[in-house]
């Protein structure tokens, strides 16, 4: 399994580079978090509080390289320090509350958009020139090309604020006790409809296009003609001969897409006040909350790398040539 070993080394290097960037970038931004907290108070905060804040948040000690090693150590021990926005709440505790929501949104929406996208893409390419092929890819490309904040605001305004079909904010009704009860679960589902809808609208066009184009290439291959000559059913050729081979480039695209889904989550969660990592990251940036920001970036990097790793494993399964 030297393929897997090689990939592991690659992922280790990639993650080291990413966390180093993660350390440097917020420190290149002008201003410091305490000044930002102070600025956002617009003068309501007495001057004496400033120094107290600095001491409280540990922003006074050590040269950069000491801070760097302390940072590495904290990452590998999963001790990411207290947040600034909600001092003294630890970052890891905050993330533990937020991650499941984003995981649910990103997972569900990717699943839905990949499934629908692949089905439409496969069908459209197999029946080239048909009604589906002429109408669907163009329409969904148009929908997906709209910037996600615009889609999200439009959906929010129409379905939540004006028609009141769906709630304005939160992951679930705050008046319900969280738990595995029918009422709570249906409330969670009700609250997730609009964010998931926005994510699907943003992603689906790419899947249809990717799959359709990959399929068209594959459909020109000799083995498809061969399969037809053998007299196999259309459905069997479509799924077992064409789609399986067309999936290879699509799998790569899916794994790369995880990063984009996270970027989309920032806008969508902000519009719907959905309690996930995207919204947290957005607010942490505004407050220059370095510990929280770094943890969110780290999490996204890990997300993307894990998705890539899963893609590698899927390759092994889909493409027998890689197994030696």
């Amino acid at each position, binding site marked *: 399994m030297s393929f897997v070993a090689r990939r592991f080394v690659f992922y280790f290097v990639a993650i080291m580079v990413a966390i180093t960037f993660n350390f440097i970038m917020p420190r290149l931004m*002008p*201003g*410091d978090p305490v*000044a*930002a907290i*102070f*600025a956002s108070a*617009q*003068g*309501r905060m*007495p*001057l*004496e509080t400033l120094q*107290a804040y600095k*001491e*409280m948040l540990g922003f006074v000690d050590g040269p950069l390289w000491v801070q760097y090693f302390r940072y590495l150590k904290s990452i590998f021990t999963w001790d990411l320090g207290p947040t600034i*926005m*909600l*001092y*003294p*709440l630890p970052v890891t505790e*905050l993330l533990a*509350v*937020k991650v499941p929501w984003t995981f649910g949104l990103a997972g569900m929406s990717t699943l839905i958009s990949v499934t629908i996208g692949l089905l439409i893409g496969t069908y459209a390419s197999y029946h080239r020139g048909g009604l589906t092929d002429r109408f669907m890819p163009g329409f969904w490309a148009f929908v997906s090309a709209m910037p996600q904040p615009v889609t999200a605001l439009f959906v929010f305004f129409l379905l*939540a*604020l004006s028609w*009141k079909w769906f709630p*304005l*904010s*939160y*992951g*679930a009704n*705050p*008046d319900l*006790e*969280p738990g595995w009860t029918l009422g709570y679960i249906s409330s969670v589902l009700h609250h997730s409809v609009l964010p998931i809808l926005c994510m699907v609208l943003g992603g689906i066009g790419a899947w249809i296009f990717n799959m359709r184009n990959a399929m068209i290439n594959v459909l020109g291959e000799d083995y498809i003609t061969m399969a037809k000559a053998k007299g196999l059913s259309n459905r069997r050729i479509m799924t077992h001969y064409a789609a399986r081979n067309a999936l290879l480039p699509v799998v790569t695209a899916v794994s790369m897409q995880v990063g984009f889904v996270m970027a989309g989550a920032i806008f969508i969660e*902000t519009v719907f*006040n959905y*309690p996930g990592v995207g*919204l*947290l990251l957005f*607010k942490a940036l505004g407050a220059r909350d370095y510990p929280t920001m770094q943890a969110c970036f780290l999490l996204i990097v890990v997300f993307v790398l894990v998705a890539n790793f899963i893609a590698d494993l899927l390759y092994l399964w889909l493409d027998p040539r890689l197994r030696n």
Partner: protein
Amino acid sequence: MKKLGLTIAVATILSTAVLNAQAAGTHAQGGTLTVPIITQTFIDDFNPYSGAQGDMVAGTMFEPLWAPNTMLGKTNWRLASNYSFANDLKSMTINLKPGLTWSDGETLDAEDVVFSLNLGKEDAKLDSTGQWSAGKFASVEALDATTVRINFTTADGTIDWHIPRLHVVPEHIWKDVEDISTFKNSNPVGSGPITEVRQVRDNQIEICRNPNYYKADQGLPYLNCIKFRQYTDNSQIQAALINDEIDWGSNFIADIDKTYVDPNPQNHGYWYPANDLINIYLNTREAPFSDINFRKAFSMSLDREIIVDLAAYGYPTAETHVTGIGEFFKTHFNDDENAKYDYLAEYNPQAAMALLDEAGYIDTDGDGFLENPDGSEINFDIHVVNGWTDWVQTVQMVSEYLAEIGIKANTKTVDWSVYDSALKEGTYQASINWSRTNGEDPIQAYRDYFHTTQQGLSWHTNHGISSPDVDALIDEYSATSDVDRRKDILSELMDFTGKNLAFVPLFSNPTWYQYNATRIGGWPSAENAFVQPVFYNGSNKLIVFEQLYAK
């Protein structure tokens, strides 16, 4: 025990105003108030000193000793029934109401207050009054079960302003806490109207009636509970207000009449009383601002009403005086002093141009803009923080008004850190900033404007105008308890401010406040202006909450 019996004039005046008397009638108990909090998530933290949710529990869970009501210029007595300064102003005595208890039934007495005051002595982070850090407090002692004496290091008759910020916490519980600055206080024991935590979820906290509240015999509080709802920004709060999901907003809402009031004019309302005064500070160390005539012309060239309407939706209150304190401190105005200088706050471009012409400002190079009397070019920047959109628009309009009288000024948006240090170090040319209102008394605003000890510390002092006489006046104000003398000092300071015009006042910021009377009644409003309706201030929040009832 010799001097304690003598209650000084200030305290006498303050004690005549017991606000409780204004409650028109009583209301039935019951109902829940829903208020928005901007945060990422709620946690089970009820420590009033905590940065996370301290603001949320101040006042309603931990009652102040008394609550200053600047709008009426009166004191609302809470845990204390009165206080008095010693004759030499080197100590003050606070008398607690008899029979106070904590929400767990334990007695609340002078020892609790002494314990709470002393927290700040050992740890600056817990110094909520700021008087230990400032070196003002010498020691604190309990004279008997309901009497506390604070001894000062020097004579000072203004320390009473800082006491309402004290969080009085239960000694019998907090004395065993190892590190109070990180203590979560998850099962709080308090003294305010709501102390019993019913639920803590990441998007909602519900806190209900204190079973041992000292005003329970008056039927207070009328409401049973407060539900705090988590939001992350203004736009969500706006949507929730429109949808009747929350009752009390303290946030900017764009085009409020159309988006909020019109859909339900009977119950949706807002009231934006004046808060801190916004000024453009001028660095008088350099030309052209070194010339008082130029500064006067600057002030007269501005149509403040139009600026308020166009740059800030008309929500702020345009300033009509130049004597340093705005509407917020109107109970302290000296009308004679104001009248002397009010012409400087009136829009009068002709007078401004005439004044400049007379002082020798002429367009010598024919570019349409005036030059200094010595022939050098006039071209200055007005600083404003990047992203503070209403102020950026304000400064742009100021620049346009200046251009109309032939003065070239540029709007310069800068990062906070640049803005901050330029103001403090006096390296700006002109810069827009607020003024100090976090105190009960305008002397703090004047201290901030002029006292030389504030140079380098405050944003408002380094404009180049100061005087030993003014320093002495400000110091004397704190050291006297004579009300008439204080009035005289304020008048002199108003005169000094108007005469020197180190800053050009524009408008008073609004206090953002929206109410929803669908379920809850008793709200303060322009017609029922009984308090400055600030949610993020324990005292004001408490005074408002006490009047609210379920419809």
